[in-house]
C-alpha cells in the first residue's frame, strides 16, 4: 500500500519535473524570459533520480523466474523508447519547415523527450542488471552494490559541475564508479542457471540491447556537439556511468554466455540426473504405484546413459515374476540374450555384470545379430533380498563408461529403496485390513450362536464358547419347536479358523431348515449328511450331537454323529456317565449308506438330572507334558459341581481346564452347553 503511494508520487513528480523543464525552455525561447540554467539542472537532476527510484520499485518488486524475461524487458523498453525517438526525428524530417528547424524551442523539446526516453532505458537496464548481479549474492557483493548504487544516484548531481567530458574533474568523479562497476560486472552466476536454449536466446537479446545502447550513445555524442542545447547530457557523470555500466555488463554477459555454451549440456545432464533422483524418491510419497517406479527406473536409466534398449525384471518375495518391462527390444530377443548369457554361465541376477564386448563370449553372433555389443546387468536388492534386475544394451563396444555405470548404480539403489518401502507399506496395510476383516468375521460368527437360552422354564441352561483364532469351528444351537419341545445341537467342524467358520455357518443353515420338519434324531443326521456331502470339501467333516428334549414327557431322543459323547449326571443314582452310542461323523460317507452308521437313542430324565455337552477342545486340552485333560477329569469336575448352578459348573470346568494346562491359550476351539432339568 505504502509503496504504491510512493510509486504514484514519484511518477507524478517525475512527469511534473519534465513538464517544468519544457515550460522553462518555452519561457526562455518564446517569451525571452531569463531563467537560470541552475533551475533547469535542479529539475533535470530530480527527474533522473525519480525515474531511477521508480524503476527500482518496479523491477525490484518482480520475482525472479526466468532470466530471459528480464533481458527481454530491457530490450522491449529500450526498443520502444528508441522507436519513439526515431519516429520524432522522422516526424521532424518530414515537417521540415523552416520555423521548426530553426526553432531553438523545438530542438530543445525534442532533445528533452529523447533524454527522458534514454533515462527510462538506462534506469530499467540498471535495475535489471542489479537483479542479475545480485542473484545468489554474497554479503560483499551486496555491500559493493549498495555503495555503487548510492554513488550512481549521487553522480546525478554532477549536472551542476557542467564540466567537459574529457576533463580531469570528470575523470576523478568517475573513477570509483568505474572500479565498483567492473567489480560487480563479474558476478554472473545467473548464466550457469540457463539451459542451452536459453543461453542462445540470452545472447541474441543482449546483442539487441547492445545495438540499442550504441544508438543512444551515438545520439548523446551528436547532441554534445550541438551548441543549441543548453544542458548537455554527455557532460554528466551520471549518464556516462550508466552507459558504461550497461555496456560493460552486456559485453561481459555476452562473452560469459558464449563461453558457457559448450559446458551447458553437461550441466543440464547432471541437473536431469538430480531431477530423476528426486522423482524416484518422491514416487512413494506421491502414492504412485510400484509400476510407476519400474517405469521411471527403466526409462530414466535408458535416457541417461543413452542405451539402445533395455529391460527390467521384478520378482516378488517368492522369486516369481511380478513385473516385466522392456523398451526398444521384444521378448523374443530378450529370451535369446538370456539363453546366450546362460550358455556362458552368466547369471543376470546374481551380481552386477558388465560385458564390454560380447565378441569374446561364445555364441556372441546371436547377440551381435540383434545387434548389441555391450551389455550391463545390475540386480536390484534390498537387505540381501533380491528384487529384480535391470539390463541395458548398446550397439557399440564398451558403450557404458564409468560415469554412466555409477549413475545407473545410484538409480538402481534409489529405486530398490523405493520398492522396498513400497512393499513394506503395502504389507502393513494388508495386515491391517486382514485384522479388520478377522474382527468382522468374529462379530458375524458371534451372531450365529443363539441369543437367548431361556426358552423353557423347565430347563436351566448355560453355554460357553471360545475360539482359538478370531473365528472357530465349534457350534451349538437351540430351537424351540413348541412350548414343551426343544431341540439342542452341538457340533464341531473339522479344522479351525476361517474355513471351519464357514462350514459352521452352513451347519447352522442346515440345522434351522431340517429342525422344522419334525424329523427323528437319526433322520435328521441322515438328511444333514446328505446336505453336507454336497458342500463340504473332501477332507472336511462335521461331528454333531442332537437332542430332542420333551419337557412334558421328560424324554430325550438323541443321536450322535461322531461327536464326543455327552456326559449325563443322574440325580437318582448320583452318578455321571458318558452316553455311548453308535454314530459316524457327518460328511465322512457321502452316500445313502450313511443311515446304517447312525443310531437313534432315547432316555427318560428326572428332575435334577444334568446333561453336559462339550466339544473335543476340552478333552484334548493338554499340559506341557503333552498329557490330555481327558474324559475322567471332566467327569469328576462335573460330579463335584453337580449341586451348583449350570453357570457355576461351567466356570468350574473352565477353571479346571486352565489349571490343568497352566496356560491362558488353548490350541483348539472349545465349547460346552450344560442343561439342568428342573
Amino acid at each position, binding site marked *: 500500500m505504502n509503496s504504491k503511494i510512493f510509486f504514484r508520487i514519484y511518477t507524478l513528480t517525475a512527469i511534473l519535473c519534465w513538464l517544468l523543464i519544457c515550460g522553462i525552455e518555452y519561457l526562455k525561447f518564446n517569451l525571452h524570459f531569463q531563467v537560470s540554467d541552475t533551475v533547469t539542472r535542479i529539475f533535470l537532476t530530480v527527474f533522473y533520480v525519480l525515474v531511477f527510484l521508480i524503476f527500482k520499485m518496479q523491477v525490484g518488486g518482480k520475482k525472479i523466474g526466468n532470466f530471459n524475461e528480464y533481458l527481454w524487458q530491457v530490450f522491449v523498453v529500450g526498443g520502444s523508447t528508441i522507436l519513439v525517438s526515431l519516429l520524432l526525428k522522422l516526424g521532424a524530417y518530414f515537417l521540415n519547415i523552416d520555423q521548426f528547424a530553426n526553432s531553438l524551442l523545438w530542438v530543445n523539446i525534442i532533445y528533452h523527450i529523447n533524454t527522458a526516453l534514454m533515462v527510462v532505458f538506462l534506469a530499467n537496464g540498471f535495475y535489471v542488471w542489479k537483479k542479475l548481479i545480485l542473484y545468489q549474492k554474497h554479503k560483499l557483493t551486496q555491500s559493493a552494490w549498495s555503495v555503487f548504487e548510492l554513488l550512481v544516484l549521487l553522480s546525478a548531481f554532477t549536472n551542476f559541475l557542467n564540466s567537459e567530458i574529457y576533463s580531469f574533474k570528470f575523470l576523478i568523479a568517475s573513477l570509483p564508479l568505474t572500479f565498483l562497476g567492473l567489480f560487480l560486472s563479474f558476478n554472473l552466476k545467473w548464466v550457469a542457471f540457463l539451459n542451452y536454449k536459453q543461453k542462445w536466446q540470452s545472447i541474441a537479446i543482449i546483442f539487441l540491447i547492445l545495438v540499442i545502447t550504441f544508438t543512444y550513445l551515438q545520439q548523446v555524442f551528436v547532441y554534445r556537439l550541438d551548441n543549441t542545447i543548453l544542458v548537455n547530457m554527455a557532460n554528466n557523470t551520471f549518464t556516462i556511468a550508466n552507459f558504461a555500466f550497461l555496456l560493460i555488463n552486456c559485453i561481459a554477459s555476452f562473452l560469459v554466455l558464449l563461453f558457457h555454451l559448450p559446458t551447458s549440456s553437461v550441466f543440464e545432464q547432471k541437473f536431469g540426473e538430480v531431477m530423476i533422483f528426486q522423482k524416484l524418491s518422491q514416487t512413494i510419497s506421491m502414492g504412485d504405484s510400484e509400476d510407476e517406479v519400474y517405469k521411471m527406473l527403466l526409462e530414466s536409466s535408458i535416457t541417461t546413459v543413452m542405451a539402445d534398449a533395455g529391460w527390467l525384471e521384478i520378482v516378488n518375495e517368492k522369486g516369481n515374476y511380478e513385473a516385466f518391462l522392456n523398451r526398444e527390444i521384444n521378448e523374443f530377443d530378450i529370451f535369446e540374450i538370456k539363453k546366450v548369457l546362460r550358455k556362458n554361465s552368466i547369471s543376470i541376477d546374481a551380481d552386477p555384470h558388465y560385458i564390454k564386448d560380447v565378441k569374446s563370449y561364445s555364441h556372441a553372433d546371436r547377440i551381435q545379430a540383434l545387434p548389441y555389443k555391450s551389455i550391463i546387468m545390475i540386480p536390484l536388492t534390498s537387505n540381501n533380498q533380491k528384487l529384480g534386475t535391470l539390463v541395458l544394451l548398446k550397439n557399440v563396444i564398451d558403450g557404458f563408461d564409468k560415469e554412466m555405470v555409477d549413475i545407473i548404480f545410484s538409480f538402481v539403489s534409489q529405486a530398490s529403496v523405493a520398492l522396498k518401502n513400497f512393499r513394506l507399506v503395502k504389507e502393513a496395510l494388508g495386515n491391517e485390513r486382514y485384522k479388520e476383516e478377522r474382527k468382522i468375521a468374529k462379530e458375524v460368527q458371534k451372531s450365529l450362536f443363539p441369543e437367548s437360552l431361556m426358552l423353557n422354564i423347565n430347563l436351566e441352561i448355560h453355554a460357553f464358547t471360545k475360539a482359538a483364532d478370531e473365528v472357530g469351528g465349534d457350534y451349538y444351537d437351540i430351537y424351540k419347536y413348541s412350548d414343551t419341545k426343544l431341540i439342542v445341537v452341538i457340533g464341531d467342524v*473339522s*479344522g479351525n479358523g476361517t474355513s471351519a467358520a464357514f462350514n459352521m455357518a452352513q451347519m447352522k443353515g442346515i440345522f434351522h431348515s431340517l429342525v422344522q420338519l419334525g424329523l427323528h434324531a437319526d433322520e435328521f443326521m441322515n438328511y444333514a449328511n446328505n446336505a453336507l456331502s454336497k458342500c463340504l470339501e473332501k*477332507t472336511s*467333516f462335521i*461331528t454333531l450331537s442332537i437332542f430332542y428334549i420333551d419337557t412334558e414327557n421328560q424324554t430325550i431322543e438323541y443321536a450322535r454323529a461322531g461327536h*464326543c459323547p455327552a456326559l449325563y449326571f443322574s440325580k437318582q443314582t448320583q452318578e455321571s456317565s458318558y452316553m455311548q452310542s453308535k454314530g459316524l*461323523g457327518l460328511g*465322512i460317507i457321502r452316500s445313502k449308506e450313511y443311515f446304517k*452308521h447312525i443310531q437313534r437313542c432315547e432316555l427318560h430324565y428326572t428332575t435334577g438330572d444334568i446333561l453336559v455337552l462339550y466339544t473335543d477342545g476340552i478333552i484334548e486340552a493338554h499340559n506341557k507334558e503333552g498329557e490330555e485333560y481327558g474324559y475322567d477329569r471332566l467327569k469328576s469336575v462335573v460330579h463335584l459341581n453337580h449341586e451348583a448352578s449350570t453357570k457355576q459348573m461351567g466356570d468350574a470346568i473352565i477353571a479346571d481346564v486352565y489349571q490343568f494346562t497352566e496356560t491362558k491359550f488353548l490350541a483348539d476351539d472349545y465349547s460346552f452347553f450344560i442343561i439342568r432339568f428342573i
Partner: protein
Amino acid sequence: MNINSEKHDQHYLIHLDGDLDASSCLLLDQAIATGLEKGEKKILINCQLLNYISSAGLGVFMSYIQEFENTNTDMVIYGLKDKVNNVFQILGLDQLLKIVNTQEEAIQIIRL
C-alpha cells in the same frame, strides 16, 4: 511328525511317528497318494508311535475311504494308542476302517 513309507513283498507300509495335525497331515496324504499311484493294493499304516491325531488327520483317512473301495485297495491301521483309538471310535471311523492291534493281525487281514 515323521512319515516313512517302505515297500514290502506283500504290502506297502507307512510309519507314522509323532503328532498328526493340520500341517503334517499333508505328508500322510502324500504318502498314501504315492502308494496308490504305484498301484499298491495293500497298505498298512503303523500307528504305534502316533501320539495325537487332529480332525485334519482324520480327514485324510476319511477322504480315501471311497477311493479304496473303488480301487479295491485294502488299508489296515494297527498299533493305535488307546487315546488315539478313542478318537477314531468316537468319530465312528472304526466302522469304516480296518483297525487292529498288531502288525501280525494286520498282515493276516490283508492276506485274506
